[in-house]
């Protein structure tokens, strides 16, 4: 009975396509298309390949963070440290590269591992020590922020430019090809982002790790009583989150030139907003990587597009806030109807 009334009120819910992708994600996809279309119509300059590349540039580091933190959120937790861990790992590995002449390959690996280390610590604090994820990761947010500055002695770090020795690593994320009518940019980072997204999507949906992370986010006690080692899998979710923050650090270094110590606070919220817009449940038990990517692209389209119509960057935050609230409210309203 309740079904028929809700479908009368909201024909969207009964649409088979919407049903398949989920209401919230359907809204997110729609929002992405509408936003993109809007900017294309509003600004001729937006309809250029280079704009498209800068949208992608802006989405790498948020995208990697968001993929990782999706796992932490699916457990029903949160990881607030990813933004500062990103900067911390990039600062430390960048200092090693520029001041200590450590080979770039090693620096990149160390950058990722710093993320893994923070993820492991967060995971142990949550699963073994029993700290609330919000508190544990708030602590490591502050620690990583401070540690990065301490390590660089509060100096900014400039990674090698692509023309300089060691600058090759920037090609991982963008290759400039000289052509007759100017430079042609190939956004290789986008391919990397997609590959890792597919890999993590398989991990989430097709492996024990993903299954247990989802299960413990849905009902931790029931999962434990089923004989599953919840401590291990909960820790792993945070390791994913940290490691991807490390990867994000590398991509951030490759996309932007200079890193300032003490920055990075707030980046995690962009990533978390992307995850939530993409339909992952903050209370745990449900989430998709595809949704997360859509959420991230909404953010970067806004970020890149708004200056084209003469709005300053702060409008990005302003508008993203509305998108976030509307997307989540649609989901909450939908679920309320279902449970009735």
């Amino acid at each position, binding site marked *: 009975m309740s079904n028929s009334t809700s479908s009368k009120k909201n024909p969207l819910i009964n649409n088979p396509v919407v049903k398949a992708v989920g209401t919230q994600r359907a809204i997110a996809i729609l929002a992405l298309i509408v936003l993109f279309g809007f900017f294309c119509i509003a600004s001729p300059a937006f309809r250029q390949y280079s704009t498209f590349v800068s949208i992608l540039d802006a989405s790498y580091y948020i995208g990697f963070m968001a993929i990782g933190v999706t796992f932490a959120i699916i457990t029903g937790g949160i990881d607030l440290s990813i933004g500062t861990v990103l900067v911390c790992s990039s600062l430390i590995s960048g200092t090693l590269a520029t001041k200590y002449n450590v080979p770039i390959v090693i620096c990149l690996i160390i950058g990722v591992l710093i993320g893994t280390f923070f993820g492991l610590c967060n995971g142990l604090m949550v699963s073994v020590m029993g700290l609330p994820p919000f508190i544990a990761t708030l602590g490591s947010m502050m620690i990583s922020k401070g540690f990065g500055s301490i390590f660089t002695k509060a100096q900014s770090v400039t990674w090698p430019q692509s023309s300089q020795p060691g600058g090759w690593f920037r090609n991982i994320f963008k290759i400039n090809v000289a052509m007759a009518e100017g430079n042609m940019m190939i956004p290789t980072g986008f391919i990397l982002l997609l590959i890792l997204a597919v890999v993590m999507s398989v991990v989430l949906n097709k492996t024990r790790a993903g299954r247990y992370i989802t299960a413990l986010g*849905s009902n931790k006690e029931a999962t434990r009583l089923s004989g599953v080692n919840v401590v291990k899998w909960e820790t792993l979710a945070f390791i994913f989150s940290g490691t991807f923050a490390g990867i994000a650090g590398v991509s951030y270094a490759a996309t932007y030139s200079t890193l300032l110590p003490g920055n990075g606070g707030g980046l995690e919220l962009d990533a978390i907003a992307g995850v939530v817009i993409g339909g992952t449940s903050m209370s745990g038990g449900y989430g998709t990587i595809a949704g997360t990517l859509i959420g991230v692209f909404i953010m970067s389209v806004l970020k890149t597009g708004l200056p084209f119509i003469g709005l300053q960057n702060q409008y990005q935050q302003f508008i993203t806030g509305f998108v976030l609230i509307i997307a989540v409210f649609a989901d909450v309203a939908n679920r309320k109807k279902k449970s009735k």
Partner: protein
Amino acid sequence: MSELILKMKGIDKSFVGVHALKGVDFDLYKGEVHALMGENGAGKSTLMKVLTGIYAKDSGEIFFEGQEVNFQNPKESQEAGISIVHQELNMMNHLTVAQNIFIGREMMSGKLINDRKMNEEAKKLFEKLNIDIDPSETMGNLTVGKQQMCEIAKAISKDAKLIVFDEPTAALTDSEIEELFKIIRDLRAKNMGIIYISHRMDEINVITDRVTVMRDGEYVGTLITKDCTKSDIINMMVGRVIYEDPKQKSNVPADAPIVLSVKNLNAGKLVKDISFDLRRGEILGFSGLMGAGRTETARAIFGADPIDSGEIYVNGTKIEIKTPQDAVNAGIGYLSEDRKRFGIIVEKSVAENSTMATLENFTKGLFIDKKREKTESELYAAKLKTKTPTVETAVVNLSGGNQQKVVIAKWLVRNCDILIFDEPTRGIDVGAKSEIYHLMNELAAQGKSIIMISSELPEILRMSDRIVVMCEGRKTGELSIEEASQASIMDAATLRN
């Protein structure tokens, strides 16, 4: 009969302040359905938790298939072949049916989970059990009955030799119960041992071979089901020495005005068409077994849960109750069965808790008038004989009985004339109990009207002027105190319709 699968001997278990199991004996044959019965709190669930390793026993012996066992955790007992179908379902609602059934034992192809194989296996399992459920459906979309079937399938898929059903039919419809019984008979035919915990007399006769009754943590006796009657079992269940004298007659004059009238109230699944009147100065007992819908009725009247339909009149005026504020404004106070979660704020002081519902009367401009808060709460602490060093003491430091008095004070300060006491003496020791009883009688004598929900029959019989009995969300009896007895209440409380 065939051989024993389980023998429990002299099981003893104490928690802080509670002797939960006192040398309990229990045995089970292969191919037997053995009912375990007793009132709420008799120790049935504790016994089962000891068996499955959730609790460690203090003393006693457990033999499973002839071997002495001492399970340390549920995993060990599961591996030995003991599965339990819990009363509260332990499901991961976001996963599919098959994913739930095989959680912790996923079927793999290489490193990847083979969901298709698990779906096929689950389907085979369901076919064997004659259950019609799509294994790829999300668990949260199933009805509670279907979820229960999944839980059973999960237990069986683990090669269980002994299955404990803990009130499996509490949430099932009649046809689902039929299906469940068919499954249980199948399992019995396969020579499995089945322990069946239920409150429902009529089911016991249909499905079980023997009945063991527990009372107050003690083993009372075991009967062959087909040789005994419903009243034999009820007598064993309630046969404790009643140290509290039942009330002889109602204290309410016949012409006392009706202060609260509930007409055809429906709310959710456990409040169906409930009607009753409450008179001035009356203590109206609400009796019934667990899950009968008494608390749900109280919560609906108090506006804590949404009302689907029905009318509520206070002092003859029809009122709309949509939120607890509406109820409080109409003079209704609710003392929750779960004091710590819903009744008091344990870290706050006695004074702060006492004025919680009336804070707007204790302000001076923007600020709280601490002095008046103190004098007023001291007044009520004295009136209710609350034992607290000062009213500034945090409630967490008080005993259960005194905490309850603080909650009462909260509603008295608010000047509520209708008080709903939900399990007012739960977790309170005997001395404090009689003080609470005394207090309730005094309140009634002063003209307050009380609805008392209680699972303890002696408490109902001692306190109530009139008794409403519920079963599965319906009112199945209304008895005057003169005609009520433990047996007549039990009869109504197990009346299924």
